[in-house]
């Protein structure tokens, strides 16, 4: 390949994410691209439809900021950390405006992306049927899911879901080369299939490595360069989430977010401090270290636990 796709989060979001788009958001609790998420909020993108198998606070922040009209997912919450209040305010009280969610199960979402990546038009499932997710739809109507009898004569009917192929996606990973060959390890979430289902992808990474490093372990690559529109180098780009091999979850920060987001006023304070008043991720991390100290920052950093090497020789 001839040219580098490395750019800043600001450039990538400005160039590739347009109001009204259907945007895939990567990561399952682990490795969520906060650097791209915050940039979407700062650039005040509007009328987005976001999709991901399961969403956490990153969705909540975009919802509170008014970027989102529609969600396609199975889950918007933060596990034992607690509920997401912007999501609830929007769903229950249309604050800042009404949003809609098309509810699936986690596996149904995951295989909608799988089907999208493989060009398989739809998929039958053992899940979903018998639930109210079959009968309730916000905007997809008849195209959300269908109950269809097994054509192979088992006598069983299955919930059939359509492939999902988002226009643009973004996610966070450990490393990529400048052309956009992405390697990821640890918990993959709905990747690799979700990122492969997108027409184009923005990836933020902890490190840029050479094409040669990628080529030494090609089974580790989850997305080839031709799908990638932009590579954003952003160490700690998933904070307060974890990135395996680089840093752990910042539990205190997440608990603080959930506490602050209970009320609109305090949520705005939090967002002002960590999103609107910083211009990029470097300022964010500078602020973090200034506020919490170098020791706290170093506590997040991962221990070194090596995978070991294998030979690809022939």
């Amino acid at each position, binding site marked *: 390949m001839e040219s580098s796709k490395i750019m800043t989060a600001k450039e990538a979001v400005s160039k590739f994410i347009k109001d009204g788009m259907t945007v895939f958001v990567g990561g*399952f*609790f*682990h490795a969520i691209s906060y650097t791209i998420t915050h940039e979407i909020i700062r650039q005040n993108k509007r009328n987005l439809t976001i999709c991901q*198998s*399961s969403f956490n606070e990153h969705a909540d922040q975009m919802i509170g900021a008014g970027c989102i009209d529609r969600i396609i*997912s*199975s*889950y*918007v*919450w933060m*596990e*034992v950390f607690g*509920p997401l209040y912007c*999501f*609830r305010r929007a*769903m*229950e009280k249309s604050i800042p405006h009404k949003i809609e*969610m098309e*509810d*699936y*199960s*986690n*596996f*149904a979402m*995951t*295989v909608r992306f*799988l089907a999208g990546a493989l060009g398989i038009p739809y998929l039958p*499932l*053992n*899940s*979903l*049927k*018998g*639930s*109210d*997710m079959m009968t*309730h739809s*916000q905007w997809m109507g008849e195209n959300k899911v269908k109950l269809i009898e097994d054509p192979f004569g*088992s*006598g*069983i*009917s299955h919930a059939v879901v359509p492939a999902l192929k988002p226009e643009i996606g973004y996610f966070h990973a450990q490393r990529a080369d400048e052309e956009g060959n992405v390697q990821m*390890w*640890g*918990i*993959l*979430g*709905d*990747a*690799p*299939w979700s990122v492969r289902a997108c027409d184009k992808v923005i990836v933020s990474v902890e490190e840029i490595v050479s094409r040669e490093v990628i080529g030494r372990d090609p089974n580790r690559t989850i997305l080839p360069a031709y799908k990638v529109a932009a590579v954003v180098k952003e160490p700690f780009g998933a904070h307060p989430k*974890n990135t*395996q091999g680089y840093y*752990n*979850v910042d*539990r205190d920060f997440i608990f603080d977010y959930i506490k602050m987001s209970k009320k609109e006023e305090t949520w705005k304070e939090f967002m002002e401090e960590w999103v609107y008043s910083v211009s990029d991720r470097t300022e964010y991390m500078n602020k973090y270290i200034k506020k919490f100290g170098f020791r706290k920052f170093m506590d997040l950093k*991962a221990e070194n*636990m090596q995978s070991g090497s294998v030979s690809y020789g022939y």
Partner: protein
Amino acid sequence: MSERGYDFTLQELMAVAASREIHDKEKVIVGTGLPLLGSMLAMRTHAPNMIAIYESGTIEAKPSITPFSVADSCLVPGAAMQGGLVEGLGIVHAGELDVGFLGGAQVDKFGNLNAHVIGDYYNPTVRFAGSGGSNDIGCGCKRTIVMMLHQKRRFVENVDFLTTPGYLTGGDAREKMGYPGNGPAVVVSTLGILRFHPVTKEMYLESYHPGVTVKMIIENTSWNLKINDDVKETEHPTVEEIRILREELDPTGIFLNKQ
């Protein structure tokens, strides 16, 4: 609660009850909170060969500390296999797993669960997380263990939204659907332990927790709850179970001292 000369909390009792539902060598999809503690306790007592599987695609996790999330980084190093959701939930969907854990905002007498809304779906009074993997686990695991706060507004005649099928309308209604899994085996509530009639599939009370009466449980259930003929007190945790929970699994009290 104080029995047999030692103390245990309601949370601990529930974790122990969950643990005892798991048999050795079973493949268990483990959630967070009490299900996680119950599973880890089972592995340290009567089910040393239980295989712990996480929705996030971790198989045979051997964390040295208690994970906080199904995607906790501590689950990955030392696991037998790590993939993504398609790996974690694919084997659930294919019917390969023995046990799954479920919860929710509401449950009805046939074990159907609601994790979506209180009120109208399109104009909810309260909106919850949604299914996540619950629907898949409820359809796919050979059996499920439901853990619930036992309150009248949660144990309801009809759920406001059916997220995860239990036995649907009871009898053979679930069987006719042809799910890979067989439905909920037990409800471990904050007041007692409830199971399902083998034919009608209606929930009944098997045991009440120490300090709880059958009357209290009836009052906290919206429908006319059936009571087992030999209803008894829930079996107490052993000293060793409590020791493992407190000293090994939750030494800082982050999971069990919350409530």
